[in-house]
């Protein structure tokens, strides 16, 4: 529909990724011949059961977990909801205080708001200007009745990677459970739940070229977390519902592909990312890179352009066949200023003019060139029409 749809450039891999062809191929037999229910007795179901088991084993191995510590869910948001709500309920007798950060995904923040309405107390700790959690604030926030710390592994908007090992150490020292929303990090970064003292971890299949509608929650053995969906013995009785067998198989396959190329992919993405960051910074005046320059996901670029509306920029990029985003994709198409950008101290009007581009290792440098060229043209056009820009230039000239 847009002018350049023939050469679409997809730069919104933090929102979702293209399902890898190998993943689709691995899933297909579980729609066609091996459609049996894994809970059934006959041998048709056993093929499905075996596939679920293998996927679980493989995924467990990628984060240093045991097989029975991986629970499949309907995605990252479900895993986040489950981790928070079920922990809150199970440990309510010990305390009703939870610590999280101001830059979490809404799956965490809105669940926290829900828990607040149920009488829990939530502390939202600050981040620094690059979006890194302030460890001293975290320590200071821990109280006698703190039952859970939930800090995201890497931020979906600005790509900042949190010092998870240090956070894990603090949680362990104070004997508080640690959950991490690793939706953007899993299968992109090496994670070891033991080394990092992570007690619970959420992940989502479609963020690493797996299918949508499937994710998992890692729950360390011994944590008395309750079942989230009632009605069956699936997932060791903690998450009822017939397993999404094709989804589970697909996510397992996607994880295999991701982990077999983890470093290669990271290197390729970093090259694209750094090229994009450098070129935008050089070619477009009055812009600012958001997030930490080094402790950053290899696929993430987030820039604010002064004097323009991010919304207009996104629409015009789409007209030119370039898919970007202005932050979280989960706000039903409407663009309120990002809570993450406000939390790192950006003024409202600058937060409005922000653009997130998230690359995939299959993107090319040529695509980056075309993207920068297009952004440059659009930003110039929007600024030419912006009274704010006009004022600024007039004042500067004086």
């Amino acid at each position, binding site marked *: 529909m*847009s002018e350049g749809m023939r050469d679409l450039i997809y730069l919104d891999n933090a929102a979702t990724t293209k399902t890898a062809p190998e993943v689709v191929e691995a899933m297909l037999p579980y729609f066609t011949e091996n459609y049996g229910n894994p809970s059934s007795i006959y041998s048709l179901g056993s093929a499905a059961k075996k596939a679920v088991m293998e996927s679980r084993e493989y995924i467990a191995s990628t984060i240093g977990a045991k097989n029975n510590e991986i629970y499949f869910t309907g995605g990252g948001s479900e895993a986040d909801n489950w981790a928070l709500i079920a922990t809150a309920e199970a440990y309510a007798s010990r305390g009703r205080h939870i610590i999280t950060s101001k830059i979490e995904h809404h799956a965490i923040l809105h669940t926290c708001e829900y828990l607040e309405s149920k009488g829990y107390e939530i502390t939202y700790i600050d981040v620094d200007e690059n979006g890194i959690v302030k460890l001293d604030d975290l320590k200071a926030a821990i109280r006698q009745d703190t039952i859970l710390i939930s800090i995201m592994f890497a931020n979906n908007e600005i790509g900042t990677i949190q010092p998870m090992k240090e956070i894990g150490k603090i949680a362990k020292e104070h004997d508080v459970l640690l959950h991490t929303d690793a939706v953007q990090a899993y299968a992109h970064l090496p994670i070891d739940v033991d080394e990092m003292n992570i007690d619970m971890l959420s992940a989502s299949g479609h963020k690493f070229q797996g299918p949508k509608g499937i994710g998992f929650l890692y729950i360390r053995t011994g944590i008395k977390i309750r079942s989230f969906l009632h009605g069956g013995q699936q997932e060791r009785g903690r998450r009822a519902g017939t397993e999404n067998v094709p989804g589970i198989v697909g996510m397992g396959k996607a994880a295999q592909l991701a982990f077999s190329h983890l470093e290669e992919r990271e290197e390729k993405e970093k090259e694209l990312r750094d090229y994009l960051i450098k070129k935008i910074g050089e070619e477009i005046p009055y812009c600012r890179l958001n997030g930490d320059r080094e402790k950053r996901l290899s696929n993430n670029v987030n820039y604010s352009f002064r004097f323009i*509306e991010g*919304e207009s920029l996104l629409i*015009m990029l*789409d007209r030119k066949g370039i898919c970007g985003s202005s932050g979280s994709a989960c706000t*039903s*198409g*409407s663009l*309120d200023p990002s809570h993450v950008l406000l939390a790192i101290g950006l003024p409202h009007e600058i937060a409005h003019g922000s653009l997130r581009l998230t690359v995939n290792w299959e993107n090319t440098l040529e695509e980056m060139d075309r993207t920068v060229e297009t952004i440059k043209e659009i930003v110039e056009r*929007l600024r030419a029409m912006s009274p704010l820009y006009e004022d600024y230039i007039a004042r500067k000239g004086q």
Partner: protein
Amino acid sequence: MKKKVVVGMSGGVDSSVAAYLLKEQGYEVIGVTMQIWQDEQELEKEENGGCCGLSAVEDARRVAQYLQIPYYVMNFKEEFREKVMNYFVEEYLHGRTPNPCIACNRYVKWESLLQRSIAIGADYIATGHYARIRQLPGGRYAICKSATDQKDQTYALYNLTQYQLAHTLMPVGEYRKEEIRGLAERAGLPVAQKPDSQEICFIPDNDYAGFIDREAGERAPGPGDFVTSSGEILGRHKGITHYTVGQRKGLQLSMGHPVFVTRICPDTNEVVIGEGEDVFSDELFCDRINYMGMEDLQGTKRVLAKIRYGHKGAYGAIEKVGEDRIRCRFEEPVRAVTPGQAVVFYENECVLGGGTIL
């Protein structure tokens, strides 16, 4: 090259047909739904009507997909809050009865949407209003009544500027409502069946006074006195924001005969009560003038004046009595001239201009 037009779409029949007609006429059409106001608690109510929330987005997107036009949601919540909701509250606190739709049209639906549409490369914006835009012999643009007279939508558009009108298309204004329905049906448009939108979209429960109290907080005026025009106290009122000029119901005054609100005095927090004849006026003054069909006003001019939405109009003579002030002397007295409402002047079914009643 095809001219580009951004159509403001609500998913309802009028704006959907507007998009369809423009596409048929050869324009490059882009659909946009303006998100202006949204309160999660109100989502449920909104789904049963209401123009501009999430359900409107779903409905409009379906139509855009059917028409195979690109579609976007644009966020105007900040402008709407500042230019419409805040204005609404301020006017009430000053004892006036505002028309928020007029402010929304001028500042949000036109100023902001047009600016952002031109930014993304459009030549025009279009809406599903039953009104026409005509270029008058002198070259000025004016909003004129549409082919259908049942639903007059010109009143709330009097405040648009010449620049805005020059960049606006209203394709639906050439048709009658039944014809538009017929067109939608024949084109197979999946339009949403919506009840007519409620009076004020951001107050779905219609409790204006409650809304103003919440918004104004400490500034909300408390109870005060009902008084006669000579200052005699008749009883206590709930706060001036609960009343409007001409109101009879809900006063809870037992006078033995019908009485009406004739004036609201924010300075003394009094509501003035009078008899039936006291709510009639033979003249009014207005300011915040917008000149539309006429460039300026010299001498006196006979016009049809509408003093509120749905008013059929009354003839009178208008005359400038200050830099930004017009007096309108009616040929017959009119009922309930209400400060804060707009008065709109028509000649030959076209809007000459209008202002805010003082």
